[in-house]
């Protein structure tokens, strides 16, 4: 499909859709599992559905430049709605479906959405709840009809009815719609995405057709994606990556987008589809690996020995075979046997049998986890990107994959490192602006188009790969002037399956301390195997045995941090295990599960004081927000533990 230059008529997503309907008409475009089977739509059918929706929106009076908010889980009809909005000259704005009403109100108000398209009743309820605070919402549409019968339909429609109305009204609107589609150029807005923002209010990132289409083309060529590929669309629609994969690249290459039946069936659906191109944040890979390991603990002795033996072989030669490096014939034979007995069935269980290109990004991934998947022969790679770049800044080419770098600049992207160590980039995917926020636009993107990522990093001299250390603003100095890079230490901590999240403090202080979140799955299973009884997350987290185990992890991390002379000051002297999981609903994490440092520091100020005051116990009360928005308080007495710190001479020895 890849043509070297974008032809003039392919300057918008609707134009690409028309091309696919013409050239690939009978090939599957979107699939969704519903009522227990995979329902499928060809490109021709997709084009027909999208046009009907667009005509329906026209009959509701949609105007050029209107914003259409889309809220729901990944479903074909919602993707079609986005393209339908584009056809009408409007701008689709996908929102995070798990956002609480307040967050939603801000975004809906900021973009001034006239139309809101919701997945189901739950989302409609949230929109109705904020409607008195948000001016400008004229029409609400919903996809799933369940429970919607009793609602006042004065300004509300089922999406299917909008499409039906569009089909009925096609003679009235055909000409106008065709004119609007024909107007679309590279400079028209393709989509607006709100960044979750680790600080402050979300910002609306405006991406043009040029951004999306050029980026989709470059990245599809980089990994030679084609019409035969399959992806699983399960990541939030509001996230730029999903838009690039499920709309941009899908439209460009003509591959098939598969939508799971529900969030809870994602793993089963993954296995059934067996995607060839797969993207997941590290936590998905971590979760799967933890599951495999937990199940192997319960497996019979023969199976366990077989697994251990062949995983050892895989760890030794698997990555080399994947990278096409020379491996002895006997090892190849061993690996082949392992593939037959262990890796093949395991990959099949995980749903990775057909994966040709797999990516992880968003957070650092633990080297053990990364190597585990690569040793199985799964081509898992890392990329580094952000919304403002239409995802891609750097990515790892096949055969040059390592767990501690994020690869070389993506095709068409220029990267430079600023004087302070901050990473800057310039690319065809660079965003147009932050919507209604010229100050932020100006402070992020300079006149020549260079964008500050806010991340500190450097290029490795030998390989030419980029390495990211931390958020530039988080990299600080300790009281005695030593370098403080919290993320670096947190990532090392999080590589232990027992640790879900870690937050390290120490800027301007004499020593580093940390909050730890245990992983209920892993620690709960461990507790079960060791006959440790617990009634709640809180009780388990404060169990002395759990404390000892985490202490051992922290000390191991200290040892490895001490080995790096630049960062040895970041060893964790004291830590406590939090009594609640850090949660996006409480504002402690972003919707993409990044730690919001300042909010946590404010909220748990009493705990931080205790860490630095030398006490070994602290009583605390914390406000929590339940899923339905109600608030409650939890009380706990937390133990504070001291961890061994490696002395300076040991550090010298390590050098």
């Amino acid at each position, binding site marked *: 499909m890849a043509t070297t230059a974008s032809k003039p008529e392919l300057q918008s997503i609707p134009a690409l859709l028309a091309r696919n309907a013409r050239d690939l008409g009978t090939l599957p475009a979107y699939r969704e599992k519903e009522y227990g089977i995979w329902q499928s739509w060809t490109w021709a059918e997709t084009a027909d559905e999208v046009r009907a929706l667009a005509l329906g929106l026209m009959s509701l009076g949609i105007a050029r430049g209107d914003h259409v908010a889309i809220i729901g889980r990944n479903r074909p009809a919602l993707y079609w709605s986005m393209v339908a909005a584009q056809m009408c000259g409007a701008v689709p704005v996908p929102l995070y479906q798990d956002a609480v009403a307040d967050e939603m109100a801000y975004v809906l108000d900021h973009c001034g959405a006239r139309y809101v398209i919701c997945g189901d009743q739950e989302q409609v309820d949230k929109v109705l709840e904020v409607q008195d605070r948000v001016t400008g919402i004229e029409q609400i549409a919903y996809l799933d009809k*369940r429970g919607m019968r009793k609602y006042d339909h004065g300004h509300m429609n089922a999406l299917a009815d909008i499409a039906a109305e569009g089909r009925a009204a096609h003679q009235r609107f055909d000409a106008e719609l065709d004119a609007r589609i024909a107007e679309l150029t590279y400079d028209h807005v393709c989509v607006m995405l709100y960044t979750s923002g680790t600080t402050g209010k979300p910002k609306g990132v405006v991406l043009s057709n040029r951004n999306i289409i050029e980026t989709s083309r470059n990245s599809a060529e980089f990994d030679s994606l084609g019409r035969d590929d399959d992806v699983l669309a399960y990541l939030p629609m509001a996230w730029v990556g999903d838009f690039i994969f499920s709309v941009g690249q899908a439209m460009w290459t003509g591959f098939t987008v598969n939508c799971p039946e*529900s969030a809870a069936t994602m793993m089963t659906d993954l296995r059934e589809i067996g995607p060839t191109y797969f993207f997941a944040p590290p936590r998905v890979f971590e979760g799967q690996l933890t599951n495999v390991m937990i199940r192997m603990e319960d497996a019979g002795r023969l199976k366990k020995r077989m697994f251990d033996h062949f995983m050892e072989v895989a760890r030794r030669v698997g990555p080399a075979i994947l990278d096409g490096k020379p491996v002895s014939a006997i090892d190849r034979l061993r690996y082949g046997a392992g593939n037959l007995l262990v890796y093949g069935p395991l990959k099949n269980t995980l749903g990775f049998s057909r994966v040709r290109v797999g990516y992880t990004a968003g957070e650092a991934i633990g080297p053990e986890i990364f190597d585990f998947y690569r040793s199985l022969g799964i081509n898992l790679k890392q990329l580094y990107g952000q919304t403002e770049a239409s995802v891609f800044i750097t990515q790892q080419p096949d055969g040059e994959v390592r767990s501690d770098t994020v690869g070389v600049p993506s095709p068409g992207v220029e990267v430079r490192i600023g004087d302070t160590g901050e990473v800057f980039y310039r690319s065809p995917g660079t965003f147009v602006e932050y919507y209604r926020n010229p100050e932020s636009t100006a402070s992020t993107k300079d006149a020549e188009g260079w964008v500050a990522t806010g991340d500190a990093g450097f290029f490795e001299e030998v390989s030419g790969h980029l390495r990211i250390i931390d958020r530039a603003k988080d990299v600080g100095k300790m009281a005695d002037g030593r370098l403080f890079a919290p993320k670096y230490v947190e990532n090392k901590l999080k590589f232990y399956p027992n640790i879900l999240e870690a937050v390290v403090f120490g800027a301007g202080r004499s020593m580093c301390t940390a909050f730890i979140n245990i992983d209920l799955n892993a620690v709960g299973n461990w507790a079960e195997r060791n006959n440790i009884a617990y009634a709640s997350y809180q009780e388990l987290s404060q169990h002395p045995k759990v404390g000892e185990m985490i202490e051992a992890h922290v000390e191991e991390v200290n040892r490895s941090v001490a080995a790096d002379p630049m960062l040895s000051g970041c060893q964790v002297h004291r830590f406590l295990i939090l009594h609640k999981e850090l949660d996006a609903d409480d504002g402690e994490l972003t919707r993409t599960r990044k730690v919001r440092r300042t909010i946590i520091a404010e909220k748990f100020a009493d705990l931080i004081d205790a860490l630095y005051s030398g006490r070994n116990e602290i009583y605390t009360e914390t406000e929590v927000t339940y899923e339905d928005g109600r608030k409650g308080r939890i009380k706990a007495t937390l133990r504070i533990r001291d961890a061994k710190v490696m002395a300076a001479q040991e550090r010298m020895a390590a050098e």
Partner: protein
Amino acid sequence: MKDTADTDTTPDGRKIGGVLMEMKNITLRFGGVKAITDISFDIRDGEIRAIIGPNGAGKSSMLNVISGFYVPQEGEVWFKGVRRGPMRPYQVARLGIARTFQNIALFDGMSVLDNIMTGRLTLMKSGVLSQALWWGPAEREETHHREKVEKIIDFLEIQNIRKTPVGRLPYGLKKRVELARALAAEPKLLLLDEPMAGMNVEEKEDMSRFILDVNDEFGTTIVLIEHDMGVVMDLSDRVVVMDYGKKIGDGTPDEVRNNPDVISAYLGVAHD
């Protein structure tokens, strides 16, 4: 229904039709024990009717009379304008009455899907032999029934446990599977015996939503027994209150709440 003249509309816009079932002067005795004494009330088409009362008030016995499992010594049961005599369970099912149980009664070793499929048994036409051979019409019929079952699975949001054996499910989900099986029979009248007993707040909220949705979407008439007063008052259109086998109140939740007999017998201090 028998007549559409006396149709009412509830404040939230649902249609409530004429009388679907009528209990006239029901008295039920077990030996010398009177479980139910001279109770009369009606159930209208499309409504959610609750039966409440303290422990031992005779609620479950009443439900068993409605389902035809117990035959009262005195009184008449009228269903769809016809007086009902003693019946076998399959006859009850064919009439369009389905129920769930206070203590879950599912097949533990079978998958969720298979359990729900059993709910369609009375609707299947092909015989045992052709079903076993799974040939021709039997195959087509199973596909049709599976489609209906899948709609229910989708409706109750249990797609992720479709293939899981019921025995491995937690209590709240088993209750939901039981509701699914009852729905699979496409009942006209659905009897729920304490659908929310032993559930936590979130599970109760989910179950309440499903009950309302079932009533709204399929127009199913629902009779339910429940202890959680908040749930009963929110869900039901009309409430029958029983105490020691007698009816002491009948009416809308508000009427029942303000009925002095009911307050002294049941709600009393508990609900203020």
